[in-house]
């Protein structure tokens, strides 16, 4: 196992790296290291052996934390590039080509995509808007900061939920830039939705029937927003799209389960101890879901690097995009 991959895996495990983009970039950079230090063993071809090597890295990372769809796409891209390397290239040439391909993927599909999304999304923010966001989506954060830099006057409501409370980090960064914010937990969503003019959400991935797969709670926010006739805009880079179709919204086969202790205990409140002695009870299960799926009915628009599209147009992007990046 390459030390870079090992390090990234441990960072996933401890939660030091979280968020779809950050995880994906960390993984790709680790792969670059792997490629850099790779030398073809005798009697083997580079294409096949390196693909095997990457596969073993991936299975290690999967052990640390289940892979996200975006990472799956990135891995597919890397493997595809390896398979397509012309046999005529020397080893060093092949490695250089592969490294630059990965670099290109990071810059174009992730970082570049975000700037394009910001450019699109900012046009949707008007003076006097009250924007709601849930959790701590990086793309939305960039949109808000950019809109603030442009001098737009708006307020932000940051909605958060236990146990991760990532919204607090977002809130901190927004406040530092002088954006007018309010903070609440998802329990109060129906009260505050009344004053909201637009909802901005992030996504872990988008499936081809328009279902948005995102941090648990997102579906609830989108549903309440739809009930209040508030437009829901999802910011998501196109590399996170997937051709799969999800129909069963309540149970996603690939959903990740978090630490049950995180919801059975309240940090810093020793007086809330109603579960003491019950944790091993056979009749009790703690469900700490990490993700949920939002049906496309509750999504007004998806903002991607290919423009702003309705959720029904996701298959088009998947088709076109997949073709392009598998080239």
């Amino acid at each position, binding site marked *: 196992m390459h030390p870079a991959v090992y390090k990234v895996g441990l960072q996933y495990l401890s939660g030091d790296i979280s968020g779809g983009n950050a995880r994906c970039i960390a993984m790709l950079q680790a792969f670059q290291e792997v490629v850099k230090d790779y030398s073809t063993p005798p009697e083997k071809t580079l294409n096949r052996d390196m693909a095997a090597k990457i596969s073993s890295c991936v299975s290690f990372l999967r052990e640390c934390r289940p892979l996200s769809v975006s990472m799956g796409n990135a891995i597919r891209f890397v493997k595809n590039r390896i398979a397509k390397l012309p046999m005529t290239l020397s080893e060093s040439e092949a490695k250089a080509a592969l490294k630059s391909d990965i670099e290109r993927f990071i810059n174009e599909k992730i970082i570049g995509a975000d700037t394009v999304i910001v450019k699109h999304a900012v046009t949707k923010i008007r003076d006097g808007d009250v924007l709601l966001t849930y959790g701590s989506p990086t793309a939305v954060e960039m949109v808000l900061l950019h809109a603030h830099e442009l001098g737009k006057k708006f307020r932000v409501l940051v909605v958060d939920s236990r146990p991760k409370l990532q919204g607090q980090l977002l809130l901190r960064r927004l406040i*530092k*830039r*002088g954006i007018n914010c*309010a903070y609440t937990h998802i329990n109060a969503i129906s009260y505050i939705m*009344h*004053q909201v003019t637009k909802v901005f959400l992030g996504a872990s991935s988008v499936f081809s029937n328009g279902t948005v797969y995102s941090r648990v709670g997102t579906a609830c926010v989108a549903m309440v927003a739809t009930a209040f006739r508030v437009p829901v805009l999802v910011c998501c880079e196109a590399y996170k799209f997937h051709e799969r179709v999800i129909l069963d919204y309540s149970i996603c086969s690939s959903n990740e389960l978090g630490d049950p202790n995180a919801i059975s205990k309240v940090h810093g409140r020793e007086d809330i101890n109603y579960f003491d002695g019950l944790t091993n009870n056979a009749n009790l299960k703690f469900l700490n879901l990490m993700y949920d799926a939002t049906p496309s009915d509750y999504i007004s628009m998806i903002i991607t690097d290919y423009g702003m599209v309705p959720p029904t147009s996701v298959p088009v992007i998947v088709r076109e995009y997949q073709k392009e990046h598998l080239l």
Partner: protein
Amino acid sequence: MGAQKKPAAARVRDDSEDLTRQRLQAIVLADSFTTQFRPITLERPKVLLPLVNIPMIDYTLAWLESAGIEEVFVFCCAHSSQVIDYLEKSEWYSRPNPNLLVRTIVSPKSTSVGDALRYIYEQQTETSQIQGDFVLVSGDTVSNMPLAGLIQEHRDRKKKDEKAIMTMVIKKDSRLGIVSDQLFIAVDPLTKQLLHYEEGTARGGDVCLDKSLLDSTVLVCNDMQDCYIDICSPEVLSLFEDNFDYQHLRRHFVNGLLVDDIMGYKIFTHEIQSSFYAARIDNLRSYDMVSKNIIQRWTYPYVPDINFSGNRPLKLGRQGIYRASDAVQSRSTNIGASTVIGYGTKIGNGGKIFNSVIGNGCSIGSNVVIQGSYIWNNVTIEDGCEIRNAIVCDGVKIRAGAVLQPGVVLSFNVVVGRNFVVPAYSKVSLLQQPTTEDSDEELEYADRSGTADLLSGVNNLQLESKASELGPDRTGYIWEVCDSAHDEEWKHSVIPIPMDKLADITRAMDDDDIEDESVVPPSGELKSDTDSINTDANDDYGYFEREVEETFLMAIIKDDVDHVIRLINSRRFAYNMASADCAGAVFYSMMRLAVNTPHNSASELYRNATTIITKWKGVLGLYLKQTDEQIEVIMKFEEMCEESAELGPLFAQIVHFLYDKDVVQEDAILRWGEEKAGADESDKVYLKQCEALIQWLKEASEEEEEEDS
């Protein structure tokens, strides 16, 4: 919350009755003994000033009641009749079956906390009102912390240790913001005994601890806030009686006890949980912060939408907007977050009001902008006014189109004229600013009739004196900022801290936290004259120069040469400056004064300069004993001329004048000339101006030499 507390309090009451048969008593000091709220406090005592439309003392009394206190002594001195009137009419007296008995103690002569407690002690011998341990708070305290447990803790400790006479409440992480006075304390981590107490230490400044403290474990912290809530045993009163020079509760009493090891009295601290609120309003900034905290409901249950002292509760809407049910408001008015609107208030069309508190019975015209301000009761604001970060007291009238710049305080019944712009940080009152430096308390204590006289006299006064300050059809005097602490104004006003100052503070606090280089300071930033000259404020000499200038300007008002010399000398030693620096700074101040005195032409400026130099050359001469120092003055003057276009042409004339008056010797001028001869062409502007003079001096000296030979 309140419901939970009361049974607890009752239980403790039973316990304590079993043990000691004592009632829980509190002394509320209804006088701050400071001048932070002047000019407002000249007309009304601080404890009756409305805090989010409810007099401050009601917050204190309501809290004491819910905390299980049974008897409160309200100690009044300044404006005592107003306080008593208020209390007699309030619910505290009229309630049929009061849990809380409110009594008043009047002592108009007391000028400090020390006096007040001594007075109570004297009374004590006759009436023995105070039966045991009591809570000592000031009438401007806002809190919701429970006291019963704390008092019990104090009593238990007292029983074990006779010398533990006081428990002081401290709080971490106050919501008052970072500019509140710095406090530095040392505590024994196990017993919580207070070992050292120091107020107002500058951040990063040195603090001296007694060596003996370091023998055992000591917890030293500077992030605590003193809530000024004390549980005291009766000994505290007698200690004040014994030490008649104790005035200030903290500065004298606490530090006195800590230093004095003969009696061995001990003070303990109690840190309250962060879920409870406790704060004292001691200046306008804390007034602002506490108001905001109340609006944000940190002080629950003492919030505007709950009736806790006979106040009429307001309705709470979204985004922290509290509105009286009968407030009339045009639909086109934009009312923003965190705003309170009182009963009977009318608001016209198209205005914009946010982050502000508006009292009862106000009438506000159309297109008025009110931001971050405190408008008290019965204020009239006409169309198109703009009010930012101001405090506007009862009965003020602001005529159409007037603008209040940030930091303004308008005292009672002031009238601001049409389209008049009240400059930032000014304080306007119907009463004239007291010019003599009497003790503050006497001034705050202006009894009712005297006030009335002054008020009626105002109409005459304003016609003859400088009262045209507020534009046509206006009344009131603008107070001058009397302290040399003009730069400190921003600390004690209701304006949000300017971004650049904030950046300075945070930088001082921790160096990691400077990311926001891009922040633009808000328009309401303080710009005093001294700031614009001194760009390099970090420079020690810059500070020194500024202080000397301030001292000098003060001295001119007082017209006392000896005094100014003494002051400047003390500054000089404080900053460790050479006498040449002093001379430079004094001369600099003189020329600044000349430039700042109104003048129309260069010749008038010259005349100003010469009169000032003639008058004050004694001071200057003191530092100009040697040629080097004189050269320094000429160079300083040269620098000034470069900065100020007006002075430039007068350079030679004034140097000549200095020579005539023997302030500068000819040697100095000649040597300066020689030094400058080697300089760049651009530096020689003033040398050329002086060529004639130098030439003349040279000839004169040659002649003298010839004569000598």
